[in-house]
């Protein structure tokens, strides 16, 4: 035992960790620490020297109503997309886990949007969601004029429209993770349940859902982070408009960097990282604990 342990240590030396640790420190840890420093200064494009201004950036941010709106929008978007992506992904995976002839090609089709460029999809959907675009046209033709909307210009629904596009795009991606989870469930469980007289719904809720736990954790984690850090979809489709109605944290950060207020931008970035950490770290810890248990 002791001998074996020593062999392990020599085979997998810590030197192997150095390259990745170096990259990680240079490109992640140092910038983060420097960013934290810069967020307390009045760093601007037009200034040569920096001044330490304490928490001024942060108080300014929280007095500003736009960032509160952006926070609210980010949360609406995150909740909507996490639910939408996971429900759509799970439904697709459940349906495509049934054995039938064209299931492979259908899996491919549903996965397709997630490998396309977000920018291209955003541009296409800006046209599709246009008030006179194909979507409203289709709704008019099947007699659902009531549902016709000014998808991207209506302050109330613009976040949901963008979220809908994100769900359209990523549902297939989450489907593949759920499908992978489905493959690891032994078929005997379903067989035993069937013999005991469980119907399809009972089999789904009592076997599939608990057994897919690892996939749920992974998917919720990924979609949560994607939702909180959303930038491309919003930036391409509305640019934060109309007015500031669809402004999210990342687009605000981009805007303040574009204005040249770099100090303010880094301060906002710190706030974004704090929000992301508060929401994801508990989830991560829970996942880790489950990993140890199983």
């Amino acid at each position: 035992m002791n001998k074996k342990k020593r062999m392990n240590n020599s085979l997998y030396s810590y030197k192997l960790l150095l390259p990745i640790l170096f990259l990680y420190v240079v490109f992640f840890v140092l910038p983060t620490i420097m960013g934290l420093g810069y967020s307390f200064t009045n760093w601007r494009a037009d200034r040569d020297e920096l001044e330490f201004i304490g928490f001024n950036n942060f108080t300014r941010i929280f007095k500003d109503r736009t960032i509160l709106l952006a926070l609210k929008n980010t949360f609406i978007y995150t909740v909507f997309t996490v639910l939408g992506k996971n429900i759509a992904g799970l439904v697709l995976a459940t349906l495509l886990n049934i054995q039938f002839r064209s299931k492979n090609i259908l899996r491919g089709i549903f996965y397709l949007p997630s490998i396309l460029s977000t920018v291209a999809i955003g541009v296409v959907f800006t046209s599709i969601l246009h008030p006179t675009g194909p979507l409203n046209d289709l709704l008019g033709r099947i007699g659902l004029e009531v549902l016709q909307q000014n998808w991207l210009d209506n302050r109330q629904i613009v976040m949901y429209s963008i979220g809908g596009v994100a769900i359209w795009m990523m549902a297939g991606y989450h489907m593949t993770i759920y499908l992978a989870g489905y493959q690891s469930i032994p078929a005997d469980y379903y067989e035993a349940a069937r013999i005991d007289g469980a119907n399809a719904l009972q089999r789904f809720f009592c076997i599939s859902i608990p057994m897919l736990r690892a996939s749920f954790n992974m998917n919720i984690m990924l979609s949560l982070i994607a939702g909180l850090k959303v930038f491309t979809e919003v930036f391409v489709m509305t640019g934060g408009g109309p007015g500031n109605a669809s402004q999210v944290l990342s687009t605000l950060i981009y805007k303040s960097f574009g204005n040249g207020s770099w100090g303010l931008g880094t301060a906002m970035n710190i706030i974004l990282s704090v929000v992301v950490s508060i929401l994801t770290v508990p989830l991560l810890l829970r996942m880790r604990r489950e990993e140890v248990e199983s």
Partner: protein
Amino acid sequence: MWLLSLIVLIPLAIVFFGSFKTQAEAVAFSLKLPESRHFENYKTVIEEAHILRAMINSLIITIASVAVCVLFSSMGAFVLARKKNWQKAFIYSSIWE
């Protein structure tokens, strides 16, 4: 299922058909087949928008980052997976975002 897949296929089909249309036809964003097939759209993209150059750039970035990731990450992962002591626990927990 095939009916459901139309949700994905229709937008893609609009874009695909649109790539053969004239400017005026394409802005309508309809599912109509193009009246005449304009293959010169592709020629324009290659010759004037230099899409090949852009693709090569993407390829360079992809190959470089995949190579670095696969090599260095697997090196690191081997160590982290094999060692079971506090140093490992520390490095592991600090690397997670």
